[in-house]
């Protein structure tokens, strides 16, 4: 079982929604558990946010751009939406410099992060449910 922190800032809330989508999936758990990496995401105009993968936990922390992490990914919100909804592929985004990655040479980390984050985001985007009242029926 993976524990994913509930976000309290806008970006953490969104990351929590995306990463929680597959939290019960065995393949996702295998990718995440004991990965022990820190990824910094910078959405332009907003603020840097750190995703901390530690043992069986995923946490978020409002951070700063110079923080030493395993991978830094920078893009704007429109690129994020284009990636999620399949209008732009990750390779093309990098080539067109719509995504900037610091740690690009750490191919293993980058590919794993793509599998964890980008794939989850695309699955959330592709979910046909658009009704909030069908979410978490057990909560208020």
């Amino acid at each position, binding site marked *: 079982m993976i524990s994913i922190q509930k976000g*309290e800032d806008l970006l953490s*809330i969104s990351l929590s*929604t995306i990463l929680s989508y597959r939290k019960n999936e065995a393949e996702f758990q295998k990718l995440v558990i004991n990965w022990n990496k820190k990824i910094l995401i910078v959405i332009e105009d907003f603020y840097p946010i750190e995703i901390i993968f530690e043992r069986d936990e995923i946490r978020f922390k*409002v951070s700063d751009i110079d923080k030493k992490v395993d991978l830094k990914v920078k893009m704007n*919100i429109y690129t*994020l939406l284009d990636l999620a909804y399949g209008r732009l592929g990750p390779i093309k985004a990098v080539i067109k410099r719509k995504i900037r990655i610091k740690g690009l040479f750490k191919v293993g980390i980058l590919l794993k992060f793509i599998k964890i984050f980008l794939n989850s*985001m695309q699955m959330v985007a592709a979910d046909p*449910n*658009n009704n*909030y009242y069908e979410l978490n029926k057990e909560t208020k």
Partner: protein
Amino acid sequence: MTETKERNLYKKISKEDVYKKLKGIFGSMNVTDKSVDLYPYSYDMTECEPHMPDFVVIPENSTQLIELVKFCNQNLLPIVPYISGNNVGGLTIPEHGGIVVDFGKKMNKILHVNENMMYALLEPGVTFGELKKYLDENYPHLRYSYPFAPPYAGVVGNVILSGMNNLSCKLGSMGDSINGLEVITADGELARIGSCFYGKEEADKDSWWSRYPMPDLMGLFINWQGMTGLVTKCAVQLWPNPPHKKTYLGVVFGLPDIGPVMREVGRTEVVDDISAVSIEVVKMTIELPEPKRIPGEPDFAALFSISGKTESLFRAKVEYLKQTIENLKNQGIKVLLVDIDEFSKLFSLRVRCHLDLPAVILSLVEYSGLTWFGSYAPTHKLEKLIPKVNDLFLKYDVPPFIYMKIMKYAHYGIFRPILRYNKFKDEDKIHSLLNEIAEFCIAEGCIPYKTPIWMTDKMREIINPGWLHLFEKVKKCIDPNNIFNPGRWNT
């Protein structure tokens, strides 16, 4: 708890005889004087002081109400109209006791829909949920407009108190969309106002199509908070339901900058509705009841709804919206525009409760108390109003909750700071905050609607004497014995 105050209502007739008469009019099953039944009618969500009614009656038709009004006028008994209890500002709290008329239980029929002239004739108890369901099932090509209110809130109460709904950027106040009213005045006479005024007896059901051009008597009942008569029928305009619809989310960084964004988008004349909320409200929607704004987060989220009867018309409108946002960016305003359908999936589908109206919106119902300074506002003052009111929230350690709208393509706006609180616990603090907000905003020219009595008291200090005298003369003329919702507006 509501305390029953000593009153001197029953000088002309005993309370027992009143009870007997009411049972005669409405039937014993539709009248109560039991405290357990009266209590829910004694308070609302706000800080307004509760007062117990003496009776609650459940009418079925106008004939019963005519008899009630005549009886009350003769015996000087207050009458307070009530629909669904989803009130603010103490509007249906019986300030002077008397008889609460609960329209919500039996006078809640959709009497007629005229497809050609696009209106619905309603009894006062019809709710937004009922109207939406009825139109969706029977007239899907027509639509009404809905507020940020639950499906069980009343339509007629909303229009006659100049509510604002999700077509308000286009239409303005809902009070403007009334075609006709049927009202009972203090002498027990039934009057029909609007194009339905022809006909000695019943009006033709297809005659409720216009408010004009006769002398506009509707103003005697709109925004009077039930002080001038009982509304028993109301015809509201409907609009074509276009097939192409989408809502865009504008995320604005910088507190005052939401002002020009809303105004400029409003002036494009392509947007059906514009509503903006403090960013904290977005978090409240997803179960963070006491959110904090984090440095770097935007300050406001605004929803822009667009519709079009054809794909190309719709696209042209979207294009113009995007161009307007680009122009604002070029002026140095930091604003991002995204498709809310796309954004909400990745953020939280819960924010969609603001789109699928009418809806129970968590941020408005999760505390036992809710109050506001709900006002019509001069839009050129938004840049001044927003930072000051935001600071007042922070001063009292209350998460800012500012809700705004642009009305009638930016002719005027809505500025509504909303305060959620625990009743019997935070009341003093919240009232003190609301008082400061009210004093500041009224001084800046904001005009509160659904106004509590203590707020009209403040307004009276600066309203011109001529208006007040005219207002009092009209009230006295139309309700000489002050039986209709006495106490409202300090009457």
